[in-house]
């Protein structure tokens, strides 16, 4: 079973790296891009647990380790059974 977790800054936190990417895109003429938020993707390969257990485990791992909840938020999905 594979799970994908996306960690990014909370909306209230400035993302200077995302802003730099946005500015670069503007330099290249992609003026339609209003904003860029940069984040991290984690893909977990899980085995030996049920889907229900995974659904409990993934947010626990994301909140405890993968994201720093002071500045970041996360979303997650199970990719395959």
């Amino acid at each position, binding site marked *: 079973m594979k799970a994908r977790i996306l960690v990014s800054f909370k909306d*209230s*936190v*400035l993302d*200077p*790296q995302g802003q*730099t990417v946005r500015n670069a895109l503007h330099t290249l003429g992609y003026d339609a891009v209003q904003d860029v938020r940069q984040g991290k993707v984690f893909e977990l390969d899980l085995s030996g647990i049920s889907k229900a257990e995974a659904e409990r485990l993934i947010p626990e791992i994301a909140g405890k*380790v*993968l994201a*720093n909840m*002071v*500045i970041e938020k996360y979303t997650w999905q199970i990719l395959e059974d």
Partner: protein
Amino acid sequence: MKFGVVVFPGSNCDADAYHAFRDALGQPTTYLWHKDHDLKGVDCVILPGGFSYGDYLRSGAIARFSPLMQEVREFADKGGLVLGICNGFQVLLELNLLPGAMLRNKKLKFLCQYVTIRLENDRTPFTRKGTKGQILRIPIAHFDGNWYAPLETLKEVEDNGQVVFRYCDPEGALTEEANVNGSLHAIAGLVNKRGNVCGMMPHPERAVEPVLGSEDGLVVLQSLLEKIS
């Protein structure tokens, strides 16, 4: 007073800290390996600068789970003195022993330079040798030193007098230019509510001898020896 310098894989200021506390301060100092569960009876734990675990995931995020950190947390909970310098500060934030988190420096550059910082609270075990308003010249070397906290946390930190250092210009004024990494309220160093855990981005251990260019870091080191009145 016995000092213990924690060594993580990727620590690179551990030897500097060891030298500063043993030779410049003249106190018994020992290394503490992060995999051990033994604080060797030290009176003060130093979390040194560096790039523990290559700064993977986030600065200090993996070091937080090192076995020894369990003992460090219990030690801190009992009122033991813990000083985190640079990466050590980041570890203390990840451990939630200090409030807030670090973001990348505002100009997205690694900064390696001298800064001037203003001592904001001289009643902590880390600053009582100095005086409020005193300006110290101490080097920094970091990529993620842009301290951030939600507004209510920031207010609490200020109201409790937990700010110990702020980046300032050489005259002591708080200017945007002097706040090199963009930290909220120019915060360069903090203590916890109880006052026994301190984190700071500037490196006092790199400013303890004239040959290093500054001795201002001794204020922090010598404060730790002061008897509590």
